[in-house]
């Protein structure tokens, strides 16, 4: 069977950029090609990751993306969420038809309205949108159930924000850089009760690119390629009321990825995880679903210190989505960060332990309607 590797990674800062989206995209793609020593023309295929509604008011995002991602007259495509783009890029290589694929995700959150009005357009115009459902509303309702069903405390949820924003101080690409205490988080406005302002992700700018290569090509392009060893994805019901918001589809997505990667004890076999947590408590819930701790144990898990930077299974050493949230690009940021940890190129936020296997997770939609899990190995 063909294998696929990430050979190079490039990313922009998550902070507000003064550049046009086109130039902003170009800089990062130019950088990754230079790093790999490749010309645009030499890349086999290019896949963009961008979403129309998050795309500065430009419909058919791929049209505007095309020049900046270097895709002029090249084989290519676009997926609407960047973990989708990543796996589509991998499929192109695994098919044996391409040796290299460049995957680039891009957005300028600073040009868009806030995430709450934007995500309300996920809702249908008849039932959900007219009663004010958006991603934060569903997350808050999910959090309330999480607190009540398992007795997880608000403080335990707030600790995620403290941890991730703390980690972000060591990540030069992070958007929100501010040391916050547990008291700060707890005292921040309860914007969607019980969710507090500092527990909700910002909206960020961000361009991130990864270069994928076939096994043979990867070995010539990079001294330390990072291999895709597992992938899983799963979609949930549209109406939040049709699901148990605390069960969801992440366990199914994770099981698919673990099966492919031959992982049966994720808490032990995974060395570091980059988890998509647009709301603080979701990191705890997702860690349960990923099998890092038992059902309802998310609160104890963070109390134990396991997911801290120097813990047994560091989660979001980059600062995660709470620090940097370029919405449609955030999945690929997780994947890129996981790859950097394996490559030992994460710089100041490189975790203390040796990383052989890393997990990257992406989610979007109301209460995590769709989840993707990627396992990378050295």
């Amino acid at each position, binding site marked *: 069977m063909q294998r696929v590797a990430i050979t190079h990674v490039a990313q922009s800062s998550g902070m507000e950029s003064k*550049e046009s989206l086109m130039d902003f995209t170009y800089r990062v793609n130019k950088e990754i090609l230079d790093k790999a020593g490749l010309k645009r023309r030499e890349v086999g295929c290019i896949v963009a990751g961008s979403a129309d509604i998050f795309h500065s008011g430009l419909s058919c995002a791929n049209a505007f993306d095309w020049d900046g991602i270097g895709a002029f007259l090249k084989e290519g495509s676009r997926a609407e969420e960047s973990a989708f783009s990543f796996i589509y890029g991998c499929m192109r290589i695994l098919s044996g038809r391409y040796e290299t694929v460049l995957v680039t995700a891009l957005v300028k959150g600073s040009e868009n309205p806030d995430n709450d009005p934007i995500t309300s357009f996920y809702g249908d115009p008849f039932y959900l949108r007219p009663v004010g459902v958006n991603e934060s509303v569903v997350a808050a309702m999910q959090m309330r159930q999480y607190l009540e069903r398992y007795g997880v405390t608000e403080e335990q949820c707030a600790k995620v924000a403290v941890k991730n924003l703390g980690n972000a101080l060591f990540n030069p690409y992070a958007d929100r850089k501010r040391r916050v205490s547990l008291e700060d988080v707890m005292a921040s406005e309860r914007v969607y009760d019980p969710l507090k302002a500092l527990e909700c992700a910002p909206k960020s700018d961000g361009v991130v690119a990864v270069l994928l290569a076939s096994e043979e090509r990867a070995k010539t392009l990079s001294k330390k390629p990072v291999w895709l060893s597992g992938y899983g994805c799963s979609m949930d019901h549209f109406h939040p009321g049709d699901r148990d918001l605390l069960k969801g589809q992440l366990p199914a997505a994770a099981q698919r990825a673990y099966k492919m990667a031959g992982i049966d004890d994720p808490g032990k076999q995974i060395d570091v995880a980059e988890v998509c947590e647009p709301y603080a408590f979701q990191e705890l819930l997702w860690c349960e679903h990923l099998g890092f701790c038992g059902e309802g144990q998310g609160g104890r898990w963070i109390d134990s210190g396991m997911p801290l930077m120097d813990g047994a299974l560091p989660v979001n050493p980059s600062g995660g989505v709470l620090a940097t949230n370029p919405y449609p690009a955030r999945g690929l940021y997780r994947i890129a960060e996981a790859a950097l940890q394996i490559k030992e190129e994460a710089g100041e936020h490189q975790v203390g332990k040796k990383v052989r296997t890393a997990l990257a997770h992406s989610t979007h939609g109301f209460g995590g309607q769709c989840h993707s899990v990627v396992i990378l190995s050295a």
Partner: protein
Amino acid sequence: MAKEEHRIVKGQVMVPYEVALGKTWSMFYDFLKEEKIMGKKCPQCSRVLVPPRSFCPRCFEDMDEWVEVSQEGIVETWVYVNMPFFAQELKIPFISAQIRLDGSDTGFIHQVAGIDLTEFEKVREIVKLGGRVKAVWSREKKGNILDIAYFEPVK
């Protein structure tokens, strides 16, 4: 009253965005204020692109060289637009045209006006593919594409 079996719900979506021009496009508009049309030249393929880019999409190299192009050019193609649609900016009838400005290597999209546009048959006697047009400037410059008011046929 018999109820309709299926119905339509009307609605509107308004999403505001504020997009950055970046350095290259900001400068392009600054040049328009001075009544100059500037393009950028690719160091590799030597093409001059108007509107300018900070990079050449084909060669994928930075373009740093500004080049002033002519305010006159050839109509590569045009269309007489006389149909209204939602949120249309220009009053109909208008002419959209692709103009190859002398000294550039790309078609520049703008409008042709300055003539009586009411009757298509008369318009096509004046506006022709391959015909020459030149820029007419707006007196007041607002930093947008209509700082060039329109292109008019050169007699």
